[in-house]
């Protein structure tokens, strides 16, 4: 039962990441990343342990609260401030992006079979799925033009790393987990403020046009 739940969550994680590769609307990005936040928050509850301990429930609540609700709120506020609604012509088109996603998925399975990482979760999908999410997150950061979608790419990357850590590390101390979560929170907060100022200064948030400093 647990394994089934866990596999469902993991597959959903990758599918939602694929959704971002297809879509070009920033509002959709934000909703997808909120959904992913809730999913990675649920992951520790279904990964391996029969009965969730208090510490797990606590961390899961914090993650769902932040990644599922606070971050999307901050991001949609940044979106409201700007005139940009769509990711216009990203550096790599949507079709090629999906193609990259498929390659990333295949590559992750191949890497998993080669590295033979010792997984602690009951699911064999955990490591390849986490790794695909990481790769898609990196891909989004590199190929998308607007500042907002880069932040979302960063969050996808974070979600992937979190799922990866869950799969390979037996137990992470609570304090450390909270420290990491707080850092990500501040990162999104700071990036949100930065987007706000970039919007005001340049009247757009197109990172491709922030190119005066070079050499």
């Amino acid at each position, binding site marked *: 039962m647990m394994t089934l739940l866990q596999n469902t969550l993991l597959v959903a994680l990758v599918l939602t990441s694929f959704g971002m590769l297809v879509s070009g609307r920033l509002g959709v990005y934000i909703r997808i990343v909120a959904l992913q936040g809730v999913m990675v928050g649920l992951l520790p509850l279904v990964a391996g342990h029969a009965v969730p301990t208090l510490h797990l429930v606590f961390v899961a609540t914090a993650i769902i609260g932040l990644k599922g609700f606070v971050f999307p709120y901050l991001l949609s506020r940044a979106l409201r401030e700007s005139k940009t609604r769509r990711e216009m012509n990203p550096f790599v088109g949507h079709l090629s992006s999906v193609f990259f996603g498929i390659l990333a998925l295949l590559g992750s399975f191949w890497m998993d079979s080669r590295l033979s990482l010792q997984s602690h979760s009951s699911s064999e999908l955990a490591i390849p799925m986490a790794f695909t999410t990481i790769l898609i997150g990196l891909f989004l950061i590199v190929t998308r033009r607007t500042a907002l979608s880069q932040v979302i790419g960063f969050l996808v990357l974070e979600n992937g790393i979190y799922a990866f850590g869950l799969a390979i590390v037996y137990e992470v101390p609570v304090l450390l987990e909270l420290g990491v979560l707080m850092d990500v929170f501040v*990162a999104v907060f700071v990036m949100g403020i930065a987007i706000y100022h970039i919007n005001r200064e340049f009247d757009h948030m197109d990172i491709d046009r922030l190119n005066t400093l070079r050499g």
Partner: protein
Amino acid sequence: MNFGWLLPILILMPGLLGVASLFVRSAQAVLRLCAIGTLGVAALSGAVALQTFRFVPLLAAGNWFMLDALSAYHLLVMMIVFSLSALYGITYFREEIAQGQFTIRHARRYGGLWFGSMSAMVLVLVSNNLGIMWVGIEATTLLTAFLICIHRTSGALEAMWKYLLMCSVGVAVAFMGTLLIAASAQQASLHGSDALLWTALRDAAHQLDPALLKAGFIFLVIGYGTKAGLAPMHNWLPDAHSQAPSPVSAVFSGFLLNAALYCILRYLPLVESATGNTGWGRGILVVFGILSILVAAGFIVAQHDVKRLLAYHSVEHLGIIALGIGIGGYGALAALFHIFNHSLCKSVSFFCAGTLGQTYGTHDMREMTHVIRVSPVWGSGLIVTLLALIGVAPFALFLSEFIILKSALNAGSYWAASLFMVGVGVVFVGALRHIISMAWEPLQTHIKARRPTIAEGMLVFGALATLLILGLWLPRPFQAILEQATRVLGGI
């Protein structure tokens, strides 16, 4: 008596000072608080570091905090850079305050972020838990990001965005590396928080899973290397260094980069002893070091902006440090020595470049000519520190670079040694061209500089004298400190 309890205080003290600076009434007073507070923290750090050098490593908070010779040495370097920069901040912002560009709102934000980032960097250095060390590095990224754009110009915002995003992604990659290291410890039956305690990992290094450890180390070098400005992950660095106010540039170049490199150094002894001292981990550092030197050399030749020139010098010198550590033995000792030399020299050259930039109203080296005549203190300071940076004898930087070269030859790495020579040679010729034109080319317009105060003169020439003396004579206690720190790295 154990002085470990001082370590948490060392983290909290700058944090409290940061909060205090939000309540100060005038901009000038915030800068004074920055200077006095930094000197206070530096005094405490000095005392703690001396305890470490004389006795044993300090441990605190259930072994989550530790200060050994390596981190104590870095702490000293950090405090020197911060103290000098805080003192310089008082004179740098004076003109901007007079012109109303640096208001109390700017000053409070500056003070809060200044102490906040100091606290985060101390956290990096005193963490024995490698996860907390990561938290500290990420915190420095976030806190220093807004220091770059204290003035919200378009250039500063662009630089800040690049810095924020590249370093966050880099540091996220480093987190994957940290997870892999923790996973490698499971074979040694280290669980829970023990799997990330550096001391526990060091004691069990032979039982760690080498494959996972190697994979983790690659992630860590790329991740923390981004923050340390190692090529080819250095793209954010020249923008951030050139757009930030000069005291902040000095801190960036003088210690922020070293803090990230320090994290890589922490992992090096683990990887080396787990892989049977075959030099696998050191080899990676040699490659990144050489690459950084060569890439920086190319950009230095074609550079026109003086602060960007200094930023590429940082890439070069971090490369030299990585190379020295990679060679090991006396090369590692010289690399640690080079950390001090580079941080001191680079901070002062950013101070000089900053004030001259204010005097000339530009950072373009083609317009900043005849600097020594225009401003005897800052002009000659810039010229001499630049000469020291390109490795002119008898400054201390020449000595440490020379020892690194010699140990590369002794270790039989002729390829590394010759590429090092090529890179440093190109830098020498390329930068010398800029230096000569800045020093002697006649002025195009008439520029009148503010008369420097005695304190400013002491700041510049005191640092230069230190570099000169260390180049000629290395005091015995300083050498002992370097040897202790190198021993932590598993070198000599």
